[in-house]
């Protein structure tokens, strides 16, 4: 976990990610994986099946996977919002970045320098660093909300008028965006938005785990943030 040079130093640890957050993280990651793959194949189906229609149910299964994962993602997200209310201070981070704190923006600046190889050392954070927080908030949280709203608007088209998803989402989102095809297009864009987020998220998590001064990947499994040196923690922002 830590490099040899640090082995003699003490390694303070902080409990950051409570169990429900960790569980949600991995369930959510799995749901997004299933949604991305199945969703892509709903939009661009696999090569045609031959024979009788009664012999196959391929699109049916793909769509089922998509809808089931969609439900899991929705329930998980609602649970995550509940935990935002009752969990520790870190559970609120990604929902309410401290936009009005000047320290936050200087942190963003430093973090950008770190990623442009202009800073020698990254700062130490118990939770997300300011740049990560911005990405989490704008790409992930709003991306999730957008995908849930457009996704269930499209789902409501199938379940029809009178169903909860039609009443709650389809009935106003489809006219708002123009027509059904526009909602499909935006939902496609949303998928790529989330995919780009996932690429950056996974890369940065692994990179920071190796190069920064705190644990990242293992923290989302154990919940503990381990610091690799006993320097000052820059949480003050």
């Amino acid at each position: 976990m830590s490099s040899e040079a640090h082995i003699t130093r003490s390694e303070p640890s902080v409990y950051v990610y409570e169990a429900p957050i960790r569980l949600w993280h991995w369930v959510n990651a799995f749901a997004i994986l299933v949604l991305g793959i199945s969703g892509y194949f709903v939009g661009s189906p696999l090569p045609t099946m031959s024979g009788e229609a009664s012999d196959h149910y391929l699109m049916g299964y793909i769509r089922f996977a998509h809808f089931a994962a969609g439900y899991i993602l929705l329930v998980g997200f609602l649970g995550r919002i509940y935990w935002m209310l009752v969990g520790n201070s870190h559970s609120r981070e990604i929902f309410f970045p401290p936009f009005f704190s000047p320290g936050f923006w200087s942190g963003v600046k430093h973090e950008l320098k770190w990623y442009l190889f202009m800073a020698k050392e990254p700062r130490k954070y118990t939770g997300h660093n300011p740049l990560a927080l911005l990405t989490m908030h704008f790409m992930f949280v709003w991306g999730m909300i957008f995908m849930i709203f457009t996704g269930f608007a499209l789902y409501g088209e199938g379940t029809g008028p009178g169903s909860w998803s039609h009443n709650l989402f389809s009935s106003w989102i489809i006219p708002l965006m123009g027509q059904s095809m526009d909602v499909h297009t935006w939902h496609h864009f949303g998928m790529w938005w989330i995919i780009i987020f996932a690429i950056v998220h996974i890369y940065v998590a692994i990179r920071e785990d190796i190069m920064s001064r705190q644990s990242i990947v293992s923290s989302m499994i154990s919940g503990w943030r381990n610091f690799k040196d006993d320097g000052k923690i820059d949480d003050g922002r």
Partner: protein
Amino acid sequence: MTETFYEVMRRQGISRRSFLKYCSLTAAALGLAPEFAGKIAHAMETKPRIPILWLHGLECTCCSESFIRSAHPLAKDVVLSMVSLDYDDTIMAAAGTQAEAIIEETIKKYDGNFILAVEGNAPLNQEGMSCIIAGKPFLEQLNHVAEHCKAIISWGSCASYGCVQAAHPNPTKATPTHKAIKTNKPIIKVPGCPPIAEVMTAVVTYILTFERFPELDRQGRPKMFYSQRIHDKCYRRPHFDAGQFVEKFDDEGARKGYCLYKVGCKGPTTYNACSTIRWNEGTSFPIQAGHGCIGCSEDGFWDKGSWYARLTDVHQFGIEGNADKVGGTAAAVVGTAVAAHAAISAVKRAQKKENA
């Protein structure tokens, strides 16, 4: 006093038996309970016909063409007589000044108590000069009649949404009824290019019988015909669920009647009743004829790119784009950037270790 529907029908040689059949079939078509057949019959026997002024703006007359092919149990001429169609410049006998005089006459006689049916739409640019009716811009005629009518039927995608004459960049600024008129009158939209004949006659029958609109959705379309997608009731739907698709026209799948999704069928995004009511006495509809739905009853269908591709064309990012091409390119760019960043990071880290 104008004649009742029943009197007109009898005059046309329709027997009472056929009349009652028509009433029960109309009730069934409108999704009403059996007892409504009697109500419809009663209404038609007693109510004077509400006059309709049917105006034509920028259009192709396909709505009229569809309407006169209504294949309800009663012959089309009865459907036409049933409606007190006071003005319809395409099919009326009178022409010129005489025809235009009827509009003023109807407005005077039935002020606030007639239906305005609009086929086509009004161009707003150049003060409406791109569509002239009887020497004046159609826009003026439309606004004049709309001011005095009871309610408006927007026939077809032109009057409902704009349709092809409103296609980007819309040089004449062709504008659908609800955005063109200055008065605030109830509007029912019956989109489609054209709408299904039976849907048109059923909407008229409903309005005349009950003197109100059928239940409308948020976009102002009658729910009974526009609450489900073509896809939901498509007879090729089992092939979609099975994953059996026409990959290109004239392949084995096309011959076997597989789902047209991959060759751009818009059935999954189009709200209309084609797959249930079908066309020309229920003979067929586009998908049954082997061609995908083009989504003609949806707003903006004329500007969404190819009729043979699933995804909408996106022009903001170049000539040939769609959500997957744009998104895929962005993801590839980010992926490459991440890889490059990782490589530089690895080098930097190696240097740092050497120095340490």
